[in-house]
């Protein structure tokens, strides 16, 4: 597979010792090594914003007005924070669906399919179990959404491992299939006859709707998403499975020689990513829409790809990056109306930032300031 996707800055060189203040350098060296993975993406983000600003200037629009409005509508008030954080929840899950397989060197971009099917499963189960108490029905809906999402993306991993099918193409094809399947089921077998303009499953009862975090005006999906990110970080950074996955992501052949269960790792990490994406669908249906319909395919899965790459597939870094991009999405409506921009403006900005972050890959290891062992050399 391609170059390092994990963003690790592992070097086994010791500190070769500076001539001057050694203790200070000993303290600074690990900071400098870690800083590379933070500073370069931030620089790339700024360069991306600068190029986008140039694009706006050429169009005769004001970048200052654009970013000012994004700040105001995305982060300026309590209401805009609430809007931003509500959109953050599905993005956290969608980004994990990219970041977890990426640890194994897999580029999975079809998380949208698992979101759609997870949401559909939650909606259908919610209708079927409407008579049961919520304490019984909700866990079944959660499990159903996660299992379907896990199976969907796990299939991508299985195809990769057992048949050598390219996971990038397969996952995106399966996303198209998932959306078609959802449209078919929502307009056919599972359609609520009362939904006229927008075919949907029957609305969930109030007992099965997921509410807000007390005192926050933001639904529980945000908290569960943050927990999922911390859990994924611990899995990757603090367990032997995560360590094995990183080795397998670097070199599958070497991992197999070491006796690592590459197949189980691929299946496990893709399925876990898919299960998280399924949860995104669960929260979209139970906390936002109230029934499963075409609104499930609203592009969170694709924004999640960009978030995971910006976070360099580090689950903890996903949290701030997802909030940032959610702010841009939350403000897009206002920005477009005020500045008379087409709604594709967000897509242009995302594309430019995505290209910039990928170009920044070429600068890793080029700057001496991040490599303590080279500090003392002339």
């Amino acid at each position, binding site marked *: 597979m*391609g170059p390092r996707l994990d963003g690790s800055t592992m070097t086994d060189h010791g500190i070769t010792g500076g001539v001057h203040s050694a203790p200070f350098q000993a303290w600074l060296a690990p900071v400098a090594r870690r800083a590379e993975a933070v500073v370069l993406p931030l620089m790339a983000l700024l360069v991306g914003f600068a190029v986008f600003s140039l694009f706006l200037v050429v169009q005769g629009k004001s970048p200052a007005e654009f970013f000012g409005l994004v700040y105001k509508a995305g982060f300026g008030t309590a209401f805009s924070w609430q809007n931003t954080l509500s959109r953050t929840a599905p993005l956290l899950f969608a980004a994990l669906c990219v970041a977890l397989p990426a640890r194994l060197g897999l580029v999975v971009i079809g998380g949208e399919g698992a979101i759609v099917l997870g949401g559909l499963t939650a909606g259908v189960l919610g209708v079927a179990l409407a008579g049961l108490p919520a304490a019984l029905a909700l866990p079944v809906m959660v499990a159903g959404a996660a299992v379907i999402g896990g199976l969907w993306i796990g299939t991508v991993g299985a195809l990769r491992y057992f048949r050598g099918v*390219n996971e990038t193409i397969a996952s995106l*094809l399966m996303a198209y299939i998932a959306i078609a399947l959802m449209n*078919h089921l929502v307009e056919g077998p599972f359609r609520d006859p009362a939904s006229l303009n927008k075919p949907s499953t029957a609305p969930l009862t109030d007992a099965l709707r997921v509410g807000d975090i007390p005192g926050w005006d933001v639904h529980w999906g945000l908290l569960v998403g943050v927990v999922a990110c911390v859990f994924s970080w611990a899995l990757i950074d603090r367990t032997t499975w995560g360590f094995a996955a990183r080795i397998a992501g670097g070199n599958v052949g070497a991992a197999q020689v070491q006796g690592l269960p590459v197949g189980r790792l691929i299946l496990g990490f893709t399925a876990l990513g898919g299960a998280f994406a399924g949860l995104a669908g669960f929260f979209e249906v139970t906390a936002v829409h109230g029934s499963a319909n075409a609104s499930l395919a609203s592009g969170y899965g*694709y924004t999640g790809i960009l978030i995971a790459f910006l976070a360099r597939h580090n689950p903890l870094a996903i949290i701030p990056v997802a909030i940032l991009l959610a702010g841009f999405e939350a403000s897009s409506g206002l920005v477009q109306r005020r500045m008379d921009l087409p709604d*594709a403006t967000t897509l242009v900005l995302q594309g430019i930032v*995505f290209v910039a972050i*990928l170009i920044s890959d070429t600068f890793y290891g080029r700057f001496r300031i991040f490599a303590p062992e080279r500090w003392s050399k002339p």
Partner: protein
Amino acid sequence: MSDLGIWAVPLAILGGAIRVSTPFLFVSLGEVLTERSGRINLGLEGTLVFGAMSGYAIAFLTGSPWAGVLAAAAAGAFFGLIHGLICSLPRVNDIAIGIAMMILGMGLAFYFGKPFVQPVAPDLPAISFGWWSDLPQVRAALQVNVLFLIGGVAAFALWWMFRATRVGLIIRVVGDSTDAARAMGLRPALIRTLATAAGGAFAGVGGAYLSLYYPGSWNEGLSSGQGLMAVALVIFARWNPIACFGAALLFGGAGALGPALQSVGVSEGYYLYYAAPYVLTLGVLIATSSPRQAMTGAPGELSITK
């Protein structure tokens, strides 16, 4: 439709295959050219959409559909050039760049294409091969667009180029071994960038066909993954341009299945027929991939098969 009975369906699929296959054909030929040089461009979906928009816009502004096709080719070459230049940098992931260029291409197309959703641009001409028949269905099915014929000729020309010309040999050497190419005094990065740009031009023309002939208008839902399916189709066709021609017809037929059934009154399960091309693509990917050895015919330097 009643006088043809059940035969209306295969006839509609044949006609549909010829109509629907042209974008697949152009994108897959472009991808063959790129991948034979050892690089993959997953961003051709974005190039296709941008080609469709720019072709439609220029055709509307100049009144000439062929000016639109040229503009789409130029825009596609530009996107390919950017992709090629970025991928020439060390340690840059060509698959991820493809995804980013796909998002950027679609974003720019929707951004600049907004004013052209309403206006009507002139269509590309078609040649009627159905003059011998009295049946309107046969005539409709054999209404063949000029670009389809050009694509067919281009498939054979590319095949011949790879087989018998110096340029073809150079591209193949670069694609099979960077080291061997360097030893021959070639510059792999430059040749790959040029091959990616040329491949982008093909994809742009495929997009112009979408907006200027079939379906023949510009809107944001014009392409739904045809560019991506064409990339999968190249693996199925084993990097052989002539096999791409056949595969494009097959995929076009699958894409025409839904509308063909609808035309005879079958509307049940519309969305499932709509998914047929994706299922078919996934099926051939599974059938033609192999977990152990490199695929026959695959360029040695290609990242997806290594």
